[in-house]
């Protein structure tokens, strides 16, 4: 090898040479453009996602790694050496952590170890609000399946965006429609960050000023024993009724039991910190590695983004309307604003309820009341995920 040859070899590996791929004679029109220009377009999109994460603080803990993973996976590399390929850095992590389903479950453990089910135990009926909010999942599924031509497993994965629960979305999509993982993850986390924007207009539209002013009575104290028994009870119910939801709910309950039982604080601390952080880094990067042009720059992605916002809106509406229905039959009224917290997106949705409530009545602190539907929304989404995994597999 002399200098000229070496320079040529090096030049041929540069991104300048490969960022625009040569035309493929078998492709036409838009597909051809995508094939040729997809990589640098994806790099721009990932930079936009980074901006959303850093500047707009859209769930930055996930969106920054996802977007960076997307950047890395769209680097033009010689075939067989792509960072997201089977022997590449991100490809290996994806295979070990996402494809086999470990990472979302570990994150769910951490979520369990951070969640306080006390407000739900103190006011069990608010669980119904978390159930009604799952209407977002099935409404979006129905539309995706009947109107947008997705297959049933794809439609189920898209619908689950309405669960407003990142790890659940990633877990279900990996099992049912891995090809849509990139756009679904991006949609799920983006819309979770947009909860304070999406929800308030819907909440105000569906409630009267008087309803928004309803004050709720102080929650009762919840004893330690109840908090310890609760995760076990959920798991047993899940075992009896819906085993397919058990990996997700089992991980959640394990984390929560470790938190509440008070004798394994070392483990609970680790789940809430070192472990969840490490897994978040790798989950984000490797989910991002699925942001390839051929899978992301499609009309399907637009549909997914559209269906995702529909799912969030339906979920919000479902929770609020359920609260109003419950008020028809119950003497102790609940403020329908806490219904919107049933979408999960813990604890942002509960904060939105609180904020809108304070606007109507400055003495009306709904935060703790909204935590009940909020955490039951997590359980509800996991149950819905179990149903979809059982039926659409």
């Amino acid at each position, binding site marked *: 090898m002399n200098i000229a040859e070496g320079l040529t070899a090096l030049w041929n590996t540069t991104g300048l040479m490969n960022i625009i791929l040569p035309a493929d004679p078998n492709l036409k029109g838009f597909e051809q453009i995508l094939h040729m220009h997809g990589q640098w377009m994806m790099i721009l999109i990932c930079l936009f996602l980074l901006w959303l994460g850093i500047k707009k603080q859209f769930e930055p803990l996930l969106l920054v790694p996802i977007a960076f993973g997307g950047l890395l996976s769209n680097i033009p590399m010689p075939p067989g050496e792509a960072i997201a390929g089977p022997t590449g850095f991100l490809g290996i992590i994806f295979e070990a952590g996402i494809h086999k389903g470990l990472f979302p479950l570990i994150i769910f453990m951490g979520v369990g170890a951070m969640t306080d089910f006390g407000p739900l*135990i103190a006011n069990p009926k608010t669980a119904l609000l978390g*159930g009604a909010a799952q209407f977002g*999942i099935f409404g979006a*599924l129905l539309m995706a399946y009947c109107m947008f031509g997705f297959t049933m497993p794809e439609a189920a994965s898209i619908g689950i965006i309405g669960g407003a629960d990142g790890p659940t979305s990633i877990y279900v999509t990996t099992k049912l429609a891995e090809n849509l993982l990139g756009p679904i993850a991006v949609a799920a986390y983006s819309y979770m960050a947009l909860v304070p924007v999406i929800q308030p207009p819907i909440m105000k539209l569906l409630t009267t000023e008087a309803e928004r002013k309803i004050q709720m009575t102080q929650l009762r104290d919840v004893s330690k024993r109840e908090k310890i028994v609760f995760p076990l009870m959920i798991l047993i*119910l899940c075992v009896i009724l819906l085993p397919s939801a058990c990996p997700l709910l089992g991980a959640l309950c394990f984390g929560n039991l470790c938190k509440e039982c008070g*004798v394994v604080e070392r483990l609970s601390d680790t789940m809430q910190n070192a472990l969840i952080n490490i897994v978040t880094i790798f989950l984000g990067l490797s989910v991002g590695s699925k942001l390839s042009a051929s899978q992301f720059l499609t009309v399907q992605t637009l549909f997914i983004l559209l269906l995702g916002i529909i799912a969030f809106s339906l979920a919000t509406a479902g929770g609020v309307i359920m609260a109003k229905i419950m008020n028809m039959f119950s003497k102790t009224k609940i403020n329908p604003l806490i219904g919107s917290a049933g979408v999960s997106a813990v604890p942002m949705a509960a904060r939105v309820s609180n904020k809108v409530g304070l606007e109507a009545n400055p003495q009306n602190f709904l935060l703790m009341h909204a935590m009940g539907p909020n955490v039951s929304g997590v359980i509800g989404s996991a149950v819905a995920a179990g149903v979809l995994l059982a*039926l659409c597999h």
Partner: protein
Amino acid sequence: MNELLTQGLAIMFIGMGTVFAFLCIMIVAMHAMSGVVAKLNKLFPEVVPQAAGVKKVVSSADDEVAVAIAAAIFKRGK
């Protein structure tokens, strides 16, 4: 299209039905649990075991360290 709609609606009804069924049973179970625990709390007041619990939180591994530290202090105190 019609068949799609039938299937989609079927999934929707089954799904929402299961979610509500699960949560309703959960609500019933929570009420039952609260009742049982309330009785338990009366029979065996929580305070004493709790305090012990908090104390004993230090795990065996921490104990080991604690012993080592105790030893170190013991030495130094001499």
